[in-house]
């Protein structure tokens, strides 16, 4: 995922929201967010 967001915290929040809302179905799936090294 590439986001146009300079604040890493905000980027994480946005990604987490995307996962919760659409990208993962947390009834049957888990997700984790890793930042590129």
């Amino acid at each position, binding site marked *: 995922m590439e986001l146009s967001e300079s604040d890493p915290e905000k980027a994480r929040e946005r990604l987490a929201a995307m996962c919760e809302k659409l990208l993962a179905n947390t*009834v*049957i799936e888990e997700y984790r967010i890793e930042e590129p090294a």
Partner: protein
Amino acid sequence: MLFAVIVFPGSNCDHDVYHVAKHVLGRAARYIWHKDRDLRGADVVVLPGGFAYGDYLRVGAIARFSPVMEEVRRFAQRGGHVVGICNGFQILLESGLLPGAMRRNDSLKYVCRDVHLKVENAMTPWTRKYARGEVIRIPVGHGDGNYFIDEEGLRRLEGEGQVVFRYSDARGARGTRGANPNGSLADIAGITNARGNVLGMMPHPERLAEGVLGGEDGRRLFEGIVEAIE
């Protein structure tokens, strides 16, 4: 008495449901495009089978963001009667109108055949024309029908009588080889919400609603909801 049949891009059982409502039951029916936000005073909303948005990402995951779903949610919250059949059930799960989730069939194959269902609860507006414990024959056609819910959720479903249809053999016995076509937890084929006005089921009652098509067991589901509303 108006049936609203929601049409998503990729719905393919919309005409079948429309046919049953209009020509078998003789009630008014109309298609509602998924971008529409007006249910036109419908008494029953049907989310039909198909492959909305090509099943991309997960079955039902994108369709639940369709504009019409906001109105379907409000309609259900007011106590309006909503049924999701097959892909429609998957959309209801993704939208949170029903609890649980759908996984790939345990065979990892698309399954298309008649199955037997045991009616577990005949007290809902949907199942009132069936008898509790009755075994009916209805076709399924899906690749993702493996229902899952966590333990607490399952306890709640069972405790509240929300499991309305279970896969069984022709005599109503569970656990018989081949009776459960997809690996669904507790042989669950159809559930309602706690209030009973929202039903989701993987089998297709609209496909066996006339004798000429080889069976009529599905018709009573639609007759039941008509009777409940009229």
